[in-house]
């Protein structure tokens, strides 16, 4: 049959988490179709049609999908499920919110956050904060899967899929959107940035956290944080990297004033190069860091900022 990927988007632009999920889907069951459900999201469907390897894009454009709430999305996916052996979504908060509902209604288990497709029914996924990797074989029948996007390469461009409009399913109306407070940032997205610079409790305040900003700007980096920094209110929740926040795997991850708790490591230890800046030379973060700089971050960060400027990074 085929697999269906739920597109990650904000009605205006398609996120590259979708491209990465397409790569995983193609390894499980081809052809790959992409579902774009949203409101006034025609441009997103056009973008999805260009992903290499996608045969068809299903466009469900209706007010009830504007925020991709789990309840209407469940109904929509159940109406489509018959035609697919596998339904996949990136393991974003949207995908995690929706897919278990679909799995439960289809009476199949869900496979969460796969890291690797070993064969169309066998997968690797992290457990215990990534301290163990489980190899899991699914029974025959439909596969419902969320994908750890940092573990898959993005499918390229160059496809020319057809876009098929599909009707909206009925909505129970027992859940509705009632507002949002989104973080605004000109910086690259945390989960797809090539460089991430994260701060921890060591930064000490929201004001001090801004020390990371001009460095991030010079390196075109995204800014992340430990849970402690989020809990203390230095930065919003969507900055959190870790087991229960976002998983990132950039080329360069810089941990500043972060001790390196297992829950934090779970979200960043697959980065290519890790730098740790910490005044405690015994901090566990140094055990995973390629380059460790022991010292006071309040001295090191301004130095780093200046050194970057003098080397021509703006």
């Amino acid at each position, binding site marked *: 049959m085929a697999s269906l990927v739920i597109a990650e988007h904000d009605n205006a632009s398609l996120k590259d988490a979708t491209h990465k999920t397409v790569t995983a889907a193609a390894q499980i069951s081809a052809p790959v179709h992409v579902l774009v459900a949203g409101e006034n999201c025609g441009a997103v469907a056009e973008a999805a049609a260009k992903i290499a390897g996608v045969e068809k894009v299903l466009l469900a454009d209706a007010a009830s999908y504007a925020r991709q709430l789990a*309840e209407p999305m469940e109904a929509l996916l159940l109406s489509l499920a018959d035609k697919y052996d596998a339904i996949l979504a990136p393991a974003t908060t949207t995908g995690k919110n929706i897919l278990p509902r679909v799995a439960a209604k289809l009476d199949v*288990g869900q496979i*969460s956050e796969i890291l690797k497709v070993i064969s169309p029914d066998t997968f690797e996924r992290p457990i215990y904060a990534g301290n163990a*990797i489980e190899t899991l074989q699914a*029974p025959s029948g439909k596969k419902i899967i969320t994908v750890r996007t940092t573990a898959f390469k993005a499918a390229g461009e160059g496809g020319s899929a057809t876009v098929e409009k599909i009707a909206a399913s009925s909505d129970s109306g027992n*859940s509705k959107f009632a507002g949002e407070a989104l973080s605004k940032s000109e910086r690259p997205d945390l989960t797809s940035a090539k460089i991430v610079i994260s701060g921890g409790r060591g930064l000490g305040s929201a004001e001090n956290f801004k020390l990371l900003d001009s460095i991030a700007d010079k390196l075109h980096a995204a800014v992340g944080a430990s849970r402690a920094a989020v*809990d203390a209110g230095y930065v919003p929740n969507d900055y959190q990297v870790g087991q229960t926040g976002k998983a990132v795997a950039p080329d360069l991850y810089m941990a500043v004033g972060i001790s390196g708790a297992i829950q934090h490591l779970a979200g960043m230890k697959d980065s290519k190069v890790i730098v740790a800046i910490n005044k405690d030379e015994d901090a566990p973060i140094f055990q995973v*860091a390629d380059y460790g700089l022991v010292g006071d971050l309040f001295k090191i960060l301004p130095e*780093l900022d200046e050194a970057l400027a003098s080397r021509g990074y703006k």
Partner: protein
Amino acid sequence: MKVLVPVKRVIDYNVKVRVKADQSGVDLANVKMSMNPFDEIAVEEAVRLKEKGKASEVVIVSIGPQQASETIRTALAMGGDRGILVKTDQMVEPLAVAKILKAIVDAEQPGFVITGKQAIDDDANQVGQMLAALLGWPQGTFAHSLELADGSAKITREIDGGLQTVEVKLPAVMTTDLRLNEPRYASLPNIMKAKKKPIEEKSPADLGVDITPRFKVLKISEPPKRVGGVKVSGVPELLDKLKADGVI
């Protein structure tokens, strides 16, 4: 309104787990077990609802071995009223957990269920959503704050882009995120009192749920190990190295 809180007994979050050499699982012998941290947050929220007069009773459920009754006791010491232990020594997959919880909901008729967003052992992040779907209820996952009104709940959720608020009709399922509240420590008198609170025991079969696993765990292996690198002397050396690696 009755509030139901499912709690899971998991390896303590401070324990660094070790994979068994034969790859059959992780070493759980003599390891400290605790309540899943997200479930402590769920219990706290339910108890606060009771303290505010918005909940009439807080019922705690756990599915697991006999020792899971200790986890229930912890929740009762935090302020839960009574417990239900669905006893099994088998591993229970999220879908089966959700089916068991559905059977409990059918019997108990709570108006609100609060689960953790994920259990920190299996990291599945499924049970709350599956339960909501099986019940045909709406959900508010990854809750950051809750405003409960008559017949509805406003739940602000921690999402990838920031915060989102949904309004759901009751009954509903909510799953907790880290910032919802800070769970209390049970006081000694409350720990003593909790010893007298009732815990009812059932089996999955009593509830008519087949918990035979659907998935086959082929192996549990070590993740690729990262080895610590070098300490650099200062910013110039750091930048030279990063440049040489081609990452800046």
